[in-house]
């Protein structure tokens, strides 16, 4: 009787899950970089120098905005691809 208890063990021990794993997709390397910190204005009384830093910061903001847009796009497209697997 005790030996009979081994039968289900033998029958079930090789049951395995479906051997397919879906790799989590990598994102494009350039959009994985963090957004840069805004630049500080050097001590000055010249408006032009202030404007240079402010303009540079606008550029950094726009680049960061593009990065966020790229991530949103990435998510949308990867989700669509993932839906095809169902």
């Amino acid at each position, binding site marked *: 009787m005790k030996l009979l208890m081994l039968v289900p063990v*033998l029958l079930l021990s090789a049951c395995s899950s479906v051997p397919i794993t879906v790799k989590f997709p990598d994102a*494009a390397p350039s959009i994985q970089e963090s957004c840069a*910190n*805004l630049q500080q204005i050097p001590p000055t009384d*010249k408006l*032009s120098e202030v404007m240079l830093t*402010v303009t540079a910061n606008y550029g950094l903001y726009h*680049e960061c905005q593009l990065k966020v847009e790229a991530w949103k796009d*990435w998510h949308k497209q990867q989700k669509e691809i993932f839906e095809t697997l169902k």
Partner: protein
Amino acid sequence: MWLLNFLPVSYLHLIVFIFMFGGLGLYTVGLLINFCPLWVKSYREPIRILSTVLIVAGIYGYGMFSANQAWSDKLNEAEKKVALAEKKAAETNTQIEYVYKDRVQVVREIQYKTLTTIRKDASKIDAVCKVDPEVISILNTAATYTGDKK
């Protein structure tokens, strides 16, 4: 049942067919045995039982192989889908990276033009306005990253 996996599939197929057709043959023998002498007839019942067992085992094995094949087909199909999805994901990344770099290039070109204009007109801009140090302090505070601070 998984122990059968150690045997080659072709052998198992052969065994299943031997069971099925052997069982059928034996069953026919069991039917024809009525025309045989009496001492042979005494084997009729064991032959029928054995043939029934063989037929049932053969059909069971055949069904098992069919189910296995169906799962194997589904698995192959799923693997193809995954491979295709991974390929598409990689292509998507390439496209997103290309578009992102292209847009960043546009932003930098516009920024370069603006900075050039400011540098060119610096003397004109600075002539009409002097910036108070307090302004610098306020702007630098506003530009300081405070994301980690609570």
